[in-house]
């Protein structure tokens, strides 16, 4: 699977929720795009990730 431009292996099936926790992302501080589409927080749990998925996980930083 692609995540923020890097290839990540998914040994076992994972929901987005599980993946974020495993990777220690702060769910309250990020937003997620999956294959070009937004995933709303409410659907993190029900979103099943697959090897062909491409994720963008972003957060706020300082910017002008």
């Amino acid at each position, binding site marked *: 699977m692609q995540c*923020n*431009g890097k290839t990540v292996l998914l040994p076992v099936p994972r929901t987005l929720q599980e993946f974020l926790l495993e*990777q*220690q*992302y*702060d769910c309250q*501080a*990020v*937003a*997620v*795009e999956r294959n*070009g589409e*937004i995933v*709303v*927080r409410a659907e993190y749990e029900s979103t099943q990730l697959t090897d062909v998925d491409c994720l*963008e*996980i*972003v*957060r*706020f*930083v*300082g*910017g*002008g």
Partner: protein
Amino acid sequence: MLKEAFIITDLLMIGGHSFQSRLILGSGKFSLAMIQAVIQHGEVEMVTLALRRANVGGEENILDYIPAGITLLPNTSGARNAGEAVRIARLAREMGCGDFIKLEVIHDSKYLLPDNYETVKATEILAKEGFTVMPYMYPDLNAARALVSAGAASVMPLGAPIGSNKGLCTKEFIRILVEEIDLPIIVDAGIGRPSQACEAMEMGVDAVMCNTAIATAGNIAQMAKSFKLAVEAGRLSYLAGLGRILDGRAEASSPMTGFLTEKD
């Protein structure tokens, strides 16, 4: 008392929200530790942010450093075309901090000049999706009109290249926008000194956005306060009405009545 009178009643309206402050702060180039002091001394009510990829593991969250009640204005920096800008805007809104978006579409890494054409396209899409779109733009009257039609909530013409501190190089054309465009005009990029922010406001611009000028100052909290005062000064003088300029000669400010003259 008059003093209060002319301040309280002068609000900046953007997308249905109202602001007393006419200084918008860019949060780039600061250490997180400084942001709060800058916001306080600048008495700003709106702060821009950028979106970037989150790294694995706990990182500091800039939102923890921004006081409650501040309106967040995420930008689409990094977008090189309308499509990318739209994706970034949607991600930004998903952060749950409101529907303001500072739209910037740039594919020139040297001068960072915005692409007006792609910006108009993205504005159209995002406005339809209910965003309060504040597009960063090159001050071209025709493009500004297209942005109005596309549903922008304001226009943000540049004064000079981003981060240059060069000042109001586009003065003549921002003047035309003030004249012709019925949206809040916010000068963004290039303003390097409080006097330049003050001059922009004197021209009738509705607000000024500032980041580098403060971030590169010696004492950034003090510079933030300086910009706050300068923007307020410029706004007041615009409302008060500037005096005429004499072309040639001078005009005495003391009576010209003869005095001691018989002593010659």
